[in-house]
């Protein structure tokens, strides 16, 4: 289905998000741009933290300084703030999620690459399912089989409301939580990708030898502005995803 916007030739959505395989064509393990970028993101994070932790000086400098600041930010602002100081051993997991998502989101803004991996449903879905599974496992580990009744029947509620509330809690905790976690990341990144495309298409369409060229600065300015905005979104979405993961896991640890 093509989207018609005046005389402009806006590409259909499948052209923006679907990439052909270039290795192992047609098989399940086919590698396209999105897969390549995912691997690149993971490798970038590993290489950065390897470089930061290679020679641990007492007075940090360069990469080690940046790495320590980044890890301290995750530990202080996400893990300790949300899960409490006794849950510091969750820092490596939350930090991995945070920096993996951040690296992928930032790769989506690098010229030539320009494809946020999280604008495809697969990776957000995997990450959300991982959080969902961990939430349930941690709940069973810390609360035993009382995890389910503890979650479904919060204390201090009138008996008459219990069935209704249990149904709402069941829906919101076990279905809506992973779903919104997934869709939030996916929708924000895809919307940003399409917004950028819109202004790039508009800019290139106005790059003509006619009077219309006077309108060119507008979409060009907007494209730059939206790129800056996407930088903010990239950080914010990584932050929100990891903070929500921390919240869900800590709620399973402590109950209501």
């Amino acid at each position, binding site marked *: *289905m093509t989207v018609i916007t005046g005389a402009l030739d806006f590409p259909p959505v499948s052209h923006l998000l679907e990439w052909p395989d270039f290795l192992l064509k047609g098989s399940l393990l086919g590698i396209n741009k999105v897969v390549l970028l995912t691997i690149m993101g993971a490798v970038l994070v590993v290489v950065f933290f390897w470089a930061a932790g290679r020679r641990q000086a007492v007075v940090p400098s360069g990469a080690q300084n940046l790495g320590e600041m980044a890890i301290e930010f995750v530990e202080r602002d996400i893990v300790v*703030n949300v899960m409490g100081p006794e849950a510091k051993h969750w820092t490596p997991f939350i930090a991995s999620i945070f920096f993996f998502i951040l690296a992928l989101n930032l790769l989506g803004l690098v010229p030539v690459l320009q494809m946020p991996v999280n604008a495809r449903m697969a990776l957000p879905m995997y990450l959300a399912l991982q959080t969902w599974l961990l939430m349930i496992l941690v709940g069973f580990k810390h609360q035993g089989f009382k995890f389910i009744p503890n979650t479904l029947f919060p204390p201090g509620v009138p008996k008459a409301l219990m069935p209704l509330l249990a149904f709402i809690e069941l829906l919101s905790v076990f279905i*809506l939580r992973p779903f919104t976690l997934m*869709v939030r990341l996916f*929708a924000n990144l895809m919307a940003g990708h399409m917004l950028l495309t819109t202004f790039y298409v508009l800019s290139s369409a106005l790059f003509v030898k006619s009077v219309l060229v006077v309108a060119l600065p507008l979409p060009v300015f907007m494209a730059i502005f939206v790129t800056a905005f996407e930088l903010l979104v990239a950080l914010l979405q990584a932050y*929100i995803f990891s*903070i929500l993961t921390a919240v869900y896991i800590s709620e399973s640890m402590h109950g209501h």
Partner: protein
Amino acid sequence: MIELLAQTGQEAGELLDGLKAVGAGLGYGLAAIGPGVGIGLVVGHAIDAMARQPEMAGTVRTTMFLGIAFAEALALIGFVVFILLNFA
């Protein structure tokens, strides 16, 4: 006669596509009203709280993002409906 029928069928199909697009747009617009107001309230009160007690800013900010996340969920469901109607 058959040509005319075929033409009407095509027009009906186009009309259906158009109605789908209108419905999707309206649905997303309506779904965004409530969360918009909700997020405004959450952030506004969070700023109030941070201005009153700057030493609590970290905790308030975390809670604010949580509140935003819960309010935003409804808008996201609207966005999914939009995508499903338009592209599925």
